[in-house]
């Protein structure tokens, strides 16, 4: 068996096999007469030759990389192979769409097929895996991420994607995309800040009065069990009533629909995970450490700032991470009650049976969640450094 190379990374090999399997079985691009028509699926092998070859070479590279010895070397090989796959599938799809469009009508839509999405996912998963296994430092991670983003933006600026349905939907909504993105972030930010402002004193109450803990957690638990659409809906009636009764609220723009009930609902959803993680974090600070702090003369305030808060910080940040990512996802539903945000595109797309428009809402939501996760992971790493 001496001639047999040794397999070092099963994940990579599996990913490349998934890639091969989908290349041979799925459709790479889907070309339809219009949004509603059932289209024709084209495989990767019908795409422009160089780009298709690059994607295939990348898949082979990924398979070979799984035999490379040494975490660092393998990580570099993997990132190169994944970059090839990404470029091959992105450029392949873009250039292929341009060719198909020359023959079609302006209403025709060229959508990305399963093969494209799986190839892109395989490449991104391989990169994430490589970055973790290669044990790259924070600056290196940011550089790798920035390089891929820059590559993508350069291709977009060069017009590589202009003929894809996704890009054409984007050009339709270009004017409002940024404002809806900001609105989405505004909903999330307002809800998380409101949850913090209510959750922090609630945590103190639960910590001080043990008898209250059961009641508080049970009440917040009930809110969590209400489906999001139902909660958004349920809030419309009382909020409308309130704004009718109180002119001041109405002048502030608070009524039954729009951002106010959305922020309220998102805040309610955030409270349980937030208070639970704050409570756990603060009550798990070692008793002997608090005892020692009291015994050498810390007062309650000094104890909180110098001992409890820093020791509970990782738990507090984990709670904030869960709540933020949850709010980013849930805020999409808020579009249903007129709060705007990226959900607008999702529901418009569903209404018009324009799946690419749905993706214009869904993809940014996923990217935002991933970005939030990365930011909180980084902060957590910093907070845990000395623990």
């Amino acid at each position, binding site marked *: 068996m001496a001639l047999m190379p040794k397999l070092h990374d099963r994940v990579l090999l599996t990913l490349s096999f998934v890639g091969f399997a989908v290349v041979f079985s799925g459709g790479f691009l889907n070309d339809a007469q219009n949004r509603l028509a059932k289209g024709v699926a084209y495989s990767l092998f019908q795409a422009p030759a160089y780009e298709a070859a690059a994607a295939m070479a990348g898949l082979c590279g990924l398979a070979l990389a799984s035999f490379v010895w040494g975490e660092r070397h393998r990580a570099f090989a993997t990132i190169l192979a994944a970059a090839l796959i990404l470029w091959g599938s992105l450029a392949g799809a873009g250039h292929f769409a341009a060719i198909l469009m020359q023959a079609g009508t302006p209403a025709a839509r060229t959508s990305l097929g399963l093969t494209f999405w799986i190839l892109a996912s395989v490449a991104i998963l391989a990169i994430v895996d490589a970055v973790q296994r290669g044990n790259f430092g924070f600056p290196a991670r940011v550089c790798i991420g920035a390089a891929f983003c820059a590559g993508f933006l350069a291709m977009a600026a060069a017009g590589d994607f202009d003929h894809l349905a996704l890009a054409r939907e984007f050009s339709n909504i270009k004017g409002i995309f940024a404002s809806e993105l900001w609105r989405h972030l505004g909903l999330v930010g307002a809800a998380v800040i409101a949850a913090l402002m209510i959750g922090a004193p609630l945590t103190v109450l639960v910590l001080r009065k043990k008898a209250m803990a059961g009641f508080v957690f049970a009440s917040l638990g009930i809110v969590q069990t209400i489906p999001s659409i139902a909660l958004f809906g349920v809030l419309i009636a009382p909020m409308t009533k309130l704004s009718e009764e109180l002119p001041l609220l109405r002048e502030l723009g608070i009524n039954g629909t729009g951002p106010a009930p959305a922020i309220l609902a998102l805040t309610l959803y955030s409270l349980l995970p937030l208070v639970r993680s704050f409570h756990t974090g603060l009550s798990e600070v070692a008793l002997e450490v608090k*005892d020692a702090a009291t*015994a050498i*003369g810390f007062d309650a305030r000094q104890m909180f700032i*110098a001992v409890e808060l820093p*020791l509970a910080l990782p738990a507090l940040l984990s709670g904030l991470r869960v709540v933020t990512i949850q709010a980013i996802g849930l805020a999409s539903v808020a579009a249903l009650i007129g709060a705007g945000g990226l959900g607008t595109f999702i529901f418009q797309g569903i209404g018009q049976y324009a799946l690419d428009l749905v993706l214009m809402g869904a993809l940014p939501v996923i990217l935002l969640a991933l970005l939030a996760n990365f930011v909180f992971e980084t902060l957590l790493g910093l907070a845990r450094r*000395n623990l």
Partner: protein
Amino acid sequence: MIELRNVTKNFAAVPAVFDFSLKIESGSFFVLVGPSGCGKSTVLRMINAMIVPDKGQIEVHGQDIRAIEPEKLRRGIGYVIQSAGLFPHWTAADNILAVPRLLKWSASQCAARLDALVALLRIDPALLSRYPRQLSGGQQQRIGVARALAADPDIVLMDEPFAALDPVSRVALQDEIRAIHARSAKTIVFVTHDMDEALRLATGLAVMNNGRLIQTGAPAAILLAPADEFVRGFLGGDDLQLRLLDLVPVRKLMKQGKATAAATIIVGASLKEALNLMLARRCSSLCVVDENGARLGEIHLNDIIARRDAI
């Protein structure tokens, strides 16, 4: 001086300390001994107001501690617990300087004090930048003791500080704290259930059982005349005579003059160590030397057996 007068403390109607009165003189190394759960830690924690008594009065330096703000009282009293209780997110140096910083000492005062403590407790300066999890149990407790001494308090409370340490670290820290006590006028109140540790360190001893004070006095006095069967049993029962030998230095029974014995013992060693050496060497006399090895005299087995007058 610390004085407790008729102090009673119940935990959920179960008495932990009952009608407890005790005077601890300034400058003494006072050890509270007793079996687990006898209330000795409760007594200790009442002195720095960590536990408030139900009844009775506690005075520190002649002042009722109820009249002092608890934080202020505690900053003037060093405190060491079994698990060290170091702040895991602070370096050893930051841990040591916790109280001086609470007292708002200047940076230069803190730095000077840190140097003095590092020298006093023979702490390896390389450890100062480490976090507690990077230190061994013995090193952690050395930092814990340094933290207790940092603001140079008159009184230091120690709650079974060395119980969790390996024998080598324990003896080293016992010697360290005994030497520090001998060189300073500090009052140390020390809780332990380990009789050997109590006898090794104490200048004053109190035996507790079931929340009550059973007997108090100098260690030798208690060993010679245990108040009851409980004290006799706790002090070691049949080993009592051997333990007594541990309290008396060779110096007291040494006969000055020419020494012919082959085996030598240092003048500061205890009679127990002398007897041990005689048993090991199968001889009945030892040559007594000083720290530099100069011969001072001789000690005989018969004198150890007839030692009564020495205590």
